[in-house]
């Protein structure tokens, strides 16, 4: 039963989409009676699925976090957010100019906190990941990281994105220079040069696409009067939009490959060959699944509407007046609307997790391999890091991620 511990070892992901779909479905259904509180259990189950089906060198990753920790973390984040919310309310009652300045300042503050939240969330995930009985961990300061990310993002904005490779290299370096596996430190050997070629090519392509879109807007008269120009102009935008999306997707694949391939753990090196085509295909699958899910929901909604407001559908066609009256009069209809909305919202996140979330992890794990895995046989455990209670702020700020 011993796993192969050889020079180079692939990372394997065994999870099946159908099994994942069933697990997710169960947790999504339970979100309803728990008024959404079950999302902490959902997150835990999702991570257990991903971690528990990913093998490195024959040993499975283990996610040791619990839902209770996430719940406590969220409650703690609320303590931070209630005053912020009060501030928002106060601003909304002020005169327009004060409100704009206030909202602007609040948005900047949130953007800064976003970096903090992401770093803390990564810390939470790493410190709850076990491989061969040894825990990962992340040190460093979330505030320092947030500040770096904040300043870099301003520079990137000012330079119209041209500074991005420098920002990415700096942040990846900070993250990995502070990541640990037991007493073994991670490292990052990448630099902006790794990203320069694909990034500036993609940047030039995007610039060309933007010019293309402007030309279309000019020709169809949408530039002078966006609402009254030729409506066909909007269809002409589809092509540049699709082109832009393709460029971004392929660039992302290149960035992921190059950056992850620069990650080191002691003498072990990670290599990743992330296929842009396959990533693109995941988006196509996602779009198809989403359309299918919405068609099913629309049919279901129509059936419910006919039952609730049957008189409006009597005879030929739909009596819009009767339908509206039925909608105004009953609380059941109001509940149906709320429920319908939650279904739409839920269906989106469900399909998103099942196709993009799963697809991304699947691609990432199965395109990675590690050289020098046998140098990791004498890593010792470090003392337990018990300071973290959930990734509260990340949850409150709705920071994505696994």
């Amino acid at each position, binding site marked *: 039963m011993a796993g192969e511990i050889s020079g180079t070892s692939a990372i394997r992901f065994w999870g099946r989409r159908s099994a994942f779909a069933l697990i997710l479905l169960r947790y999504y259904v339970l979100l309803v009676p728990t*008024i959404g509180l079950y999302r902490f259990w959902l997150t835990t189950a999702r991570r257990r699925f991903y971690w528990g089906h990913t093998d490195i060198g024959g040993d499975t990753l283990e996610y040791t976090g619990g839902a209770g920790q996430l719940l406590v973390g969220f409650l703690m984040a609320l303590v931070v957010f209630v005053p912020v*919310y009060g501030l928002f309310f106060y601003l909304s009652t002020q005169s327009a100019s004060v409100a704009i300045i206030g909202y602007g300042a609040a948005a900047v503050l949130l953007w800064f906190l976003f970096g903090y939240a992401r770093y803390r969330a990564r810390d939470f995930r790493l410190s709850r990941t076990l491989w061969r009985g040894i825990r990962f961990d992340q040190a460093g300061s979330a505030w320092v990281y947030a500040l770096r990310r904040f300043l870099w993002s301003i520079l990137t904005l000012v330079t119209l994105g041209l500074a991005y490779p420098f920002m990415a290299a700096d942040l990846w370096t900070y993250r990995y220079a502070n990541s640990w596996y037991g007493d073994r430190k991670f490292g990052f050997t990448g630099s902006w040069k790794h990203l320069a070629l694909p990034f500036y090519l993609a940047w030039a392509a995007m610039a060309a696409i933007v010019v293309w879109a402007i030309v279309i807007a000019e020709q169809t008269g949408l530039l002078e009067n966006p609402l009254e120009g030729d409506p066909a102009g909007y269809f002409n935008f589809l092509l540049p939009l699709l082109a832009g999306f393709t460029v971004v997707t392929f660039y992302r694949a290149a960035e992921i490959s190059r950056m992850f391939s620069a990650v080191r753990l002691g003498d072990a090196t990670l290599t990743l060959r992330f296929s842009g085509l396959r990533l693109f295909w995941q988006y196509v699958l996602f779009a198809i699944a989403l359309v299918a899910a919405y068609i099913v929901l629309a049919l279901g909604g129509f059936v419910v509407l006919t039952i609730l407001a049957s008189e409006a559908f009597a005879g030929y066609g739909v009596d819009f007046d009767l339908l509206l009256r039925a909608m105004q009069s009953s609380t059941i209809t109001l509940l149906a609307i709320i429920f319908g909305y939650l279904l739409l919202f839920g269906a989106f996140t469900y399909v998103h997790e099942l196709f993009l979330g799963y697809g991304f992890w699947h691609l990432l794990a199965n395109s990675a391999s590690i050289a020098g895995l046998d140098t990791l046989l004498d890593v010792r455990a470090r003392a337990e890091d018990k300071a973290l209670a959930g990734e509260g702020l990340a949850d409150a700020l709705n920071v994505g991620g696994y």
Partner: protein
Amino acid sequence: MIPARYHDGLSSRVHDVALSYERTEGDGALLVHPAGSSDVLVRWPAQNLVQIAARRGQLRLGATDAPDGARVIVETETDIARIRATLPLLRQRQRQESARQFRLAMIGTLSLASIILAYILFVPLLASRVVHLIPPGWEEGIGATVAEQVEASLGGAAGLPLCDPDPQSLANRAIARFAAEALAETTSPFTPDIRVVRSDIPNAFAIPGGRIYFHSALLNAARTQDEFAGVLAHEIGHIAYRHGMEQLVSTAGTGALIGLILGDMTGISVAAGLGATIIDARFSREAEREADRFAALVSQRLDYQPAGLAALIARVSQDDAFGRALALLNTHPLTDDRRVALEALSRERPTGLEPPFTPAEWEAIRTMCQAQATKVKRP
């Protein structure tokens, strides 16, 4: 002997091991042997064993007194079944853990549900208390901002021009006197500022700080002074109860609550907006009833039929299909029960009261948006 892998939780070395079960008096223990040897690497008493969540086809065991990361991992279905049969305790532990998680989720859900319930029951009450703590000066400032936005969105670049800009005209003096009399028996800190403005939309509304907009389209649709006085008294009721401010406070509270439920405190999600609108519509319906009662209360002192209010709203909304389409989320729905309540209030009025306006005053009010159409064109 069952083949397994063992991580000691101290170093990353992987041990190929064999498992056996030691049956002693009372409680047994799990013995971990190095593969092909009968030495004992580690001994885990059965009662310390913990089953760790793992994928199907894999059994992960830890022990409470072992290092955190120490694991015994078995990966064959038949071996897993054998271990489960030998250690019924594992299933029992798993059930205990599920029960613990269930309790946690239950307690969380119940507390969340009680917060929501308390909110729905008490926020109208709470909002009206909080509103009394807000200094009138602050509310007037907010009112000025709201007025700016409302005039820009309803009237466009021209804003909402006054029908009769002369505050000393017969009509404006009569209206101001009516408003002062209506508010006479309240503790309202505001001086009502009633603006009859030129607009094709039949509407009347109060904003925080004491200002009321009465649109010319609604005034022109009024047939009697009962109708005009009824609607005006209703809007003055909103001022007296500070409903506009109350609404702001409760909207903020609802936004925070929805954020709490959906876990998105930034409130950017659409769900927050929609949910808030639906919950707040309930509060505003209560406010409408309260303002109706105020209009009826004033009609105990001045001679007009508060039911005229219902007649006027019904008339202007009759052919307005668009208005009906929005009525679900509308803040001014003229429901049947509201109309019935108003008619009941109209019947219980004392006799021998003074009418709110003299015939000459009512004539001046009725025509104030027709006669001086040229006057407002001034820059």
